[in-house]
């Protein structure tokens, strides 16, 4: 069918606005949340609060990276800690052994992680559902154990330490604000990337592949390419987050950086915030990270691990009762309480009454 033979249709605007988060639109809620993040980053000076904020924004960026594969392409990965670790270790090893500034080192890490992600997707091309998920988990564990045993490269279980000598070239700073600036920038860049993906055809190819592979192939989309590209991009951006993590904490060891707990955290932030949306991972991180830091602060004196018990229970409750996450809940709340939404609901109700 040729488009020219079809009746004229109303133009779709290039940018549309909405109140609640919606695909293909700039939402006021998102802008408000991101703006308050930036303002808070600029205003707050309490050292503990800034530390929690830096962690929160870093995790938001990382969860956005995970979401590219897990949310958009449906490639639920519980091995993302491996990509995160590859990023952290690559830039740190380059810095410590060869003096390469992490500003460049992070792209080396991103490249290696992208290749690893593409390889993993190709290797697991035929797996679906739980088997894909568990394969990523197993692959992540293989990387962790390799990092533990390859002492000459990774320092083994003792880990690697970046000397705490402030130097802009080495991305090591004395005060917190440069870290805050870099990490807020990372989060905003990840958000922009996600919002862009949602509005381009590449993003739609990912959605199609996620929702129905046969359907996607039937309209000319190569599902294998979509999956591989999504995983590579997701791995690369997570690796960049890994470099930032290493530079902020100045210490790396396999048990803490490549552990499955890190991968679970990525996934759970997205699940709580709302999978497959640009705002979901940000909302999720804003809730989960301060919450777990707070719980850790409150409960760590008594026994280690208790905060994670509570955390696990909260996750269960949120996921069972808000399956589309906080982002979806906000969308529903807005559509119910906003004038336009209220009107639409009335019209709908009248239709059923009639």
């Amino acid at each position: 069918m040729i488009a020219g033979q079809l009746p004229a249709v109303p133009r779709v605007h290039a940018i549309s606005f909405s109140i609640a988060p919606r695909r293909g639109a700039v939402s006021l809620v998102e802008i408000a949340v991101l703006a308050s993040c930036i303002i808070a980053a600029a205003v707050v000076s309490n050292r503990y609060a800034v530390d929690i904020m830096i962690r929160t924004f870093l995790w938001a960026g990382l969860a956005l990276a995970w979401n590219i594969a897990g949310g958009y392409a449906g490639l639920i990965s519980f091995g993302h800690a491996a990509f995160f670790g590859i990023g952290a270790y690559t830039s740190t090893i380059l810095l410590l052994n060869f003096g390469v500034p992490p500003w460049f080192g992070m792209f080396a890490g991103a490249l290696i992680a992208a290749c690893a992600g593409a390889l993993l997707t190709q290797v697991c091309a035929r797996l679906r559902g739980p088997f894909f998920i568990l394969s990523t988990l197993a692959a992540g564990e293989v990387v962790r154990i390799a990092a533990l045993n390859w002492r000459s490269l990774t320092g083994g279980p003792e880990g690697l330490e970046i000397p705490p000598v402030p130097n802009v070239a080495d991305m090591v700073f004395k005060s917190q604000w440069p870290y805050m600036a870099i990490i807020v920038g990372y989060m905003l860049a990840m958000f922009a990337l996600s919002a862009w993906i949602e509005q381009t055809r590449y993003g739609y190819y990912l959605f199609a592949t996620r929702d129905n592979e046969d359907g996607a192939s039937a309209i000319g989309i190569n599902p294998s390419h979509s999956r591989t590209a999504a995983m590579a991009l997701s791995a690369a951006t997570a690796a960049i987050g890994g470099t930032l993590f290493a530079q902020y904490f100045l210490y790396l060891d396999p048990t803490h950086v490549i552990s499955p707990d890190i991968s679970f955290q990525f996934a759970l932030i997205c699940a709580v915030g709302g999978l497959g949306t640009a705002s979901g991972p940000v909302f999720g991180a804003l809730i989960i990270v301060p919450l777990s830091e707070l719980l850790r602060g409150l409960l760590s004196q008594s026994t280690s691990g208790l905060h994670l018990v509570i955390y696990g229970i909260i996750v269960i409750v949120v996921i069972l009762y808000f399956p589309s996450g906080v982002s979806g809940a906000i969308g529903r709340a807005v559509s119910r309480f906003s004038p336009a939404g209220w009107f639409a609901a009335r019209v709908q109700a009248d239709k059923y009454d009639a």
Partner: protein
Amino acid sequence: MLKLDAVGRQFGSLWAIRDVSFTVEAGEIVGIIGPNGAGKSTLFNVIAGAIVPTAGAIRFLDRTIDYGKPYHVARRGLARTFQIPKPFKQLSVRENVMLSALRRHHTPRQANSVAMATMEFIRIGELAEASVASLTVGQLKKLELARALATEPMLLLLDEVMAGLTPPEIKDMMTMIASLPRRGVTVVWVEHVMMAIMNVAERIVVIHQGQIIAQGKPADVSKDPAVVGAYLGEKYAYAAR
């Protein structure tokens, strides 16, 4: 436009289709009928590139198709619907249709206009923003068709698009399918709703146990004793007389 040459596909020791040869010229509407399990779906999957044939060759627009790569076949202008609809569940109806147009029109904005026009043509325009989960079986079938058409194909494979539709909807759909050749779309159509396919298709291919047992004009095919025996049954044979 489409030429099948002794195509066969074996599953284990069973030939789902065997020695199937026919050609489809541009602008035709070719109907494929046969009892359940005759191999029609396998045939479609083979033509669309989803299943690799064990024997024979399929040429589309004078080139052999890429077996096992349905997305290449689709890009060359062959669209299909699925008997069991395969929508993109988390997207709206409009986005489902728009996705099909994205390969040719690059930006969601341009693809949207194609999608809207296609939805109007299929008469699901008012469902544009509905979620796929809320659709009825009939609406899902129409969505399948809209999605296939929005790729702007040269050749369209229709797999039982009438199943689940009400009689007035079937009438509508018949008019619409009949108008496709004028829009430059050639149609190959598998259908169980005999009234529809016998009236709209110009040529019928009958498949039974994986092999072609008859082909020709609908009126001739329906009188063919082999066909009547194998498939159409007494009722239709009686009505045809």
